[in-house]
């Protein structure tokens, strides 16, 4: 009786949808809470690089500091400036936040695993889209709407300037970023992120075949997620705080959340495209290797932040349009010549 029930196509379909729902909830909750450890790590690394201790008061070694920050932010007043466009001002953080999460719908964290007890095979990705990388780039590009709307709706000069700068920077570097991804696609012959990782198994990592593409991707990626040395949109010295100058309380927190999630997804993308995803020596399971690589890249991004100064805006545009864009076109041509 049970066997008959479990083999019914409708029941199978429902089980599949249920598994997708569970994965969506788990991934979203994990990503939603990732900024808590990340802010702590970032401040601790900053402290030690600058020969300080970093947060130390709340909990042992300050480990509860992010929780305290979160509680503080929830209890803050949600200020909406009287000149602002209230509706756009209210929804802009959510518009910025949703695409950053939607990227994770197709990110593969590992191969299939079998869950003990119920003996069911589950893939460690939510869905394997045929258009994987194109989807990721398209959705990640949507975040710029939230940022420019937030900057414009605040009706404050600093916020408007920050929003404009941010959008110009993001669209400029998006080109170099997607051209670098095209180099990888030419080597692998597939847009699906799972296929891209499988093609690299056995140490055939794309960084060996696409060294120039990797450098372009790393630089453009740093600019795309607004990190130093490209964090012009929130240049404290000249712009106050950039596009979120007028935001307070949880709406401000949503913008910060977006930035951290974007940092994670950019590191994840870099691992998948260039560092072989979950490929690694066999003594650890694939997902552990995947997380180690991602953590290392996040650490390097944080390290960069406290090592390099910030570029000027004209330098930023020069790097994006006059150096990275021609270089990435060249990379595509060279790769094409080698591939055919």
């Amino acid at each position, binding site marked *: 009786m049970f066997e008959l029930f479990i083999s019914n196509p409708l029941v199978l379909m429902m089980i599949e949808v249920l598994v997708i729902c569970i994965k969506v909830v788990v991934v979203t909750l994990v990503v939603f809470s990732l900024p808590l450890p990340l802010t702590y790590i970032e401040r601790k690394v900053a402290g030690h690089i600058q020969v300080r201790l970093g947060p130390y008061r709340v909990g042992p070694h300050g480990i509860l500091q992010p929780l305290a920050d979160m509680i503080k932010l929830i209890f803050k007043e949600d200020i909406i400036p009287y000149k602002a466009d209230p509706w756009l001002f209210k929804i802009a953080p959510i518009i910025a936040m949703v695409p950053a999460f939607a990227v994770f719908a*197709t990110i593969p964290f590992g191969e299939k695993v079998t869950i003990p007890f119920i003996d069911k095979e589950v893939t460690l990705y939510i869905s394997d889209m045929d258009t994987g990388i194109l989807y990721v780039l398209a959705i990640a590009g949507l975040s710029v709407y939230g940022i420019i709307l937030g900057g414009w709706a605040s009706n404050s000069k600093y916020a408007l300037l920050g929003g404009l700068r941010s959008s110009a920077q993001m669209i*400029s570097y998006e080109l170099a970023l997607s051209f670098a991804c095209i180099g990888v696609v030419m080597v692998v*012959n597939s847009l699906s992120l799972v296929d891209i990782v499988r093609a690299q198994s056995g140490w055939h990592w794309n960084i060996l075949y696409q060294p120039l593409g990797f450098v372009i991707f790393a630089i453009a990626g740093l600019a795309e997620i607004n990190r130093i040395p490209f964090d012009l949109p929130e240049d404290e010295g000249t712009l106050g705080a950039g596009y979120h100058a007028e935001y307070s309380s949880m709406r401000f927190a949503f913008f910060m959340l977006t930035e951290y999630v974007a940092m994670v997804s950019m590191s994840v993308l870099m691992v998948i495209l260039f560092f072989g995803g979950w490929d690694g020596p066999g003594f650890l399971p694939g997902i552990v290797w995947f997380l180690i690589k991602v953590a290392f890249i996040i650490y390097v991004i944080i390290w960069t932040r406290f090592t390099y100064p910030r570029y000027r805006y004209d330098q930023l545009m020069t790097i994006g*349009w*006059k150096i990275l864009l021609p270089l990435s076109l060249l990379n595509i041509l060279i790769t094409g010549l080698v591939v055919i």
Partner: protein
Amino acid sequence: MLITYLPVLLIVGFVIFMATMVLFVNSLVSPKKPFREKLSPWECGMEPIGNADAGHFKVHFFVIAILFIVFDVETLFLFPWAVVLRDMGLVAFVEMFIFISILAIGLVYAWKKGALEWV
């Protein structure tokens, strides 16, 4: 398979739901004491002058956006091309080479016209 795109809808819905819940909790526990100075846009403590959204921005941003659209469409053409390049061989490569050259001429023109200078 449309089911591969179902998770996108689910994630979008779930994130909007969570954001709304957090904002709801925030609206319950946060103080609300607005007064005129607190609600005015931040301008280093001075009275804000004029409207910021009246459209005073550097026209360069617009030029950059136009250039971006040109190259972004090129990206869309390049992705399917990159997938089938190995099967189609030299013909596809030469065709795309011509296509990229035409766009590269556009980039060189914009460069010479000073659209990329930011002073």
